[in-house]
């Protein structure tokens, strides 16, 4: 085992990001629905958000000088790690109630795990972030665990 991750990295497990608050608009749901090739009218008309719409809603809006040369935004929740090339991982989502236009949603993100594995083409670092999405009044909307890979 190469032990890429040291105590200084692992100390970040449990860290929470600043709260994000976003307003859901019909226009944004419609754009997302068209881009993802939806077929149901409720999505295309923006009456309800498709299942992964919250991924777009809470994607960081970063300024140009905050992007790395490869165009990736650095997630401030994640410490600087010895591997930096991002690859898509996976999501695990519990749905509590649909997202509709006019909703004001609040997301709390926590880094819940950070570990390394030996992949077939070299070492990989995995991290897990849990995001809890609620309405402003505290009604649960979505609980999501994202796993991402760095190579």
């Amino acid at each position, binding site marked *: 085992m190469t032990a890429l991750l040291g105590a200084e990295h692992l100390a970040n497990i449990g860290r929470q990001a600043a709260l994000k608050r976003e307003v859901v608009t019909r226009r944004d749901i419609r754009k997302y629905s068209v881009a*993802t090739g939806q077929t149901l009218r409720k999505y295309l008309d923006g009456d309800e958000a498709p299942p992964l719409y919250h991924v777009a809603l809470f994607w960081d809006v970063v300024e140009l000088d905050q992007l790395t040369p490869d165009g990736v935004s650095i997630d401030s929740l994640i410490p600087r790690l010895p591997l930096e090339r991002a690859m898509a991982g996976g999501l695990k989502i519990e749905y509590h109630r649909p997202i509709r236009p006019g909703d004001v949603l609040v997301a709390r993100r926590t880094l819940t795990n950070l570990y390394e594995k030996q992949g077939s083409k070299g070492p990989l670092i995995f991290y897990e972030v849990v995001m809890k999405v609620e309405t402003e009044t505290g009604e649960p909307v979505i609980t999501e665990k994202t796993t991402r890979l760095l190579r």
Partner: protein
Amino acid sequence: MPNITSLTAGDTLPGRSYRPDNVQLFLYNAALWNAHRIHYDHPYATGVEGYPGLVIAGPMIGEWLAQCVVGWLGEAGRLVSFEYSNRKAAIIGETLRSGGTITAVHPELREATIDLFIWNESDEVIAPGTAIVRFD
């Protein structure tokens, strides 16, 4: 619309084929504010990151897995949970197919569990997923 009383483990969900182009990939990443060069900078995607072409965004493929469920379910119920992982990159120009199989039916909970797949042209599962739906 499907009905919980007529479902059996092993039933399949109708799939769909996807052949996303640069325009769709651009609109998707614009909707997210995702500027990763692997999705629009061909020399970068191939020369620097070593992909055979422009990479179809992972969470868009995730959305297609979920689409297989919600398109089949319609207004008969709702998605309770959904998970997937991106196992292999897909490249613009490829044709992908979605599909699903019911693996368990729980009439007492009015729930069904569904395995979901996105296949590439070589019949490899590039993104497996699982969903639980609850009927009204």
